């Protein structure tokens, strides 16, 4: 490579950096920098009325999982935090399973329709996908609240004598999240099945494979990436969900997102809130890294 060429390449790289600069600057200032401030705050001392004192401390991180007795300084696991952490992970996993159970057959159904009908069914999935999350949470709340449709129906049928209290429970959060995130599962799985060449399955059948064997050994490996993508797309926002658990769980059933908010409000322990935020981010990143590993590993085999 001669000098002129190197110089041209450098000029090109500089031009490209300049073009990307506005977007990079906005995200750096309004998304990355704030996150770094959170990292700093997680190592400070809580102020008396919220905010922080600039004194180094690892207490915030310590309190994510442990608590210290105020009288004798004995250290125990923090039950409240562990319950919420456990609830967040469990509810997110169950939400993923529910959406898998309903979403995968739906994606299969849409992908196996004749091309013209397919557009119509896809359209039906896209509408809830694009509808405001808060609006959909209000809609599902209307179904399960004490005077809601389900209770009224059950009362009318005589199946129950008094309305069942479903709101403000783990069950309510679960129903809400599964409802809200269901379209996120259907679309990527659909995209994967749609790409699948059904002649492969027929070839499998010609070689005397049973239907189940065909599904497992021919179809599944091809659509696996879509199923994993859908699961990540549901699991990650579930884990960090704030609005749906706030409305469906009330103050009674909290998830990590609500616990974090509380530290900056009534709880007023900013360093703990900062540490909890980073713990949540770490959980999400683990899921994302696991996903990238899985899909790139897949590609290497294929």
């Amino acid at each position, binding site marked *: 490579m001669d000098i002129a060429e190197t110089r041209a390449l450098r000029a090109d790289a500089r031009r490209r950096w300049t073009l*990307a600069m506005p977007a990079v600057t906005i995200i750096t200032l309004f998304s990355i920098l704030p996150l770094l401030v959170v990292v700093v705050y997680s190592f400070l001392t809580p102020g008396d009325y919220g905010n922080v004192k600039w004194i180094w401390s690892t207490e915030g991180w310590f309190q994510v999982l442990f608590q210290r007795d105020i009288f004798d300084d004995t250290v125990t696991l923090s039950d409240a935090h562990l319950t919420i952490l456990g609830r967040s992970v469990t509810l997110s996993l169950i939400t993923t399973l529910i959406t898998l159970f309903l979403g995968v057959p739906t994606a299969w159904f849409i992908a196996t329709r004749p091309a013209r009908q397919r557009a119509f069914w896809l359209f039906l999935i896209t509408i809830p996908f694009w509808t405001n999350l*808060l609006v*959909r949470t209000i809609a599902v709340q*209307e179904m399960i609240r004490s005077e809601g449709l389900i209770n009224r129906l059950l009362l009318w049928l005589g199946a129950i004598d008094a309305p069942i209290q479903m709101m403000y429970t783990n069950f309510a959060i679960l129903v809400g999240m599964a409802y809200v995130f269901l379209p996120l599962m259907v679309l990527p799985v659909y995209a994967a099945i749609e790409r699948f060449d059904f002649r492969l399955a027929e070839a499998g059948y010609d070689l005397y494979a049973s239907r189940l064997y065909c599904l497992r050994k021919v179809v599944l490996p091809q659509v696996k990436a879509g199923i994993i993508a859908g699961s990540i797309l549901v699991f990650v926002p579930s884990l*960090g969900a704030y609005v749906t658990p706030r409305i469906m769980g009330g103050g009674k059933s909290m998830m990590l997102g609500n616990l974090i908010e509380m530290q900056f409000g009534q709880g007023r322990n900013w360093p703990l809130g900062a540490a909890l935020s980073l713990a*949540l981010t770490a959980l999400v990143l683990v899921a994302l890294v696991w996903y990238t590993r899985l899909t790139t590993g897949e590609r290497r085999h294929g």
Partner: protein
Amino acid sequence: MDKRAFNIRHLPGATALAITCFVILYIPMVILIVNSLNAGKSISVWEGISLRWYGTALQNEGFLNAATTSLILASTAALVATVTATMAALATTRTKSFRGEGTINLVLNQPLMVPEIVLAIALLIILAQVKQITGYNGLGWLIIAHSAFCIPFAYMPIRARLQGMDLTLETAAADLYASRFYTFRKVTLPLLAPAVLAGFMLAFVVSLDDVVMSEFLKSPGQDTLPTYLLGQLKRNLTSEIYAISSLLLLISVLIVAGSWALTRKKT
């Protein structure tokens, strides 16, 4: 071709589950709309159909202000996000990889990798102080915060389109002594337009949908439609809430239908 009993496309149970899924998705939304049409005062007693609550909502100043704020916020943020994302996408595609290309991609996707509540809290910590120092409390903060998390959504479709684009036409234009900017304006941009529009719409809806970021970062009295709705929910459920929700639902349906009509025309 011989017809065989075997048809893997048809799986027992899949259709039933799919129909169940559609029913589950749509019943709550239909019920929401039905409730918004209730003429009665109580949400639990049906007193016939009327558009009364839509009228109430449209005369409600709080709602109208929130709607205006949402519209200004979403369109400005989407515009900023789309313009900057288009520039960034032009920078990172159609080239041999250059120093820092990976970094740019990582930075531009960063907002997708962090839970929204964490970003909102993080920004709240900084903005609370910046607002105090600068004394500026306007919509600008929300606009730029929304732009930041909308950029990845605009970036994705535009970049995908650029990656699949043929360079021949641009090379031809350059061979005919078109300036770089002229080529961009007359060749690249028209080819890119559908993706830019798609990116803009995605960013617009993402901003319009946002609850968490706006709820944490808004200055007092500065409500968007979702935060206004969230505030109303703290009190009792009313038919007016259902009417406002139904209006938002209607907007989504219109946007989806519009974008489908746009893509249909081309194919």
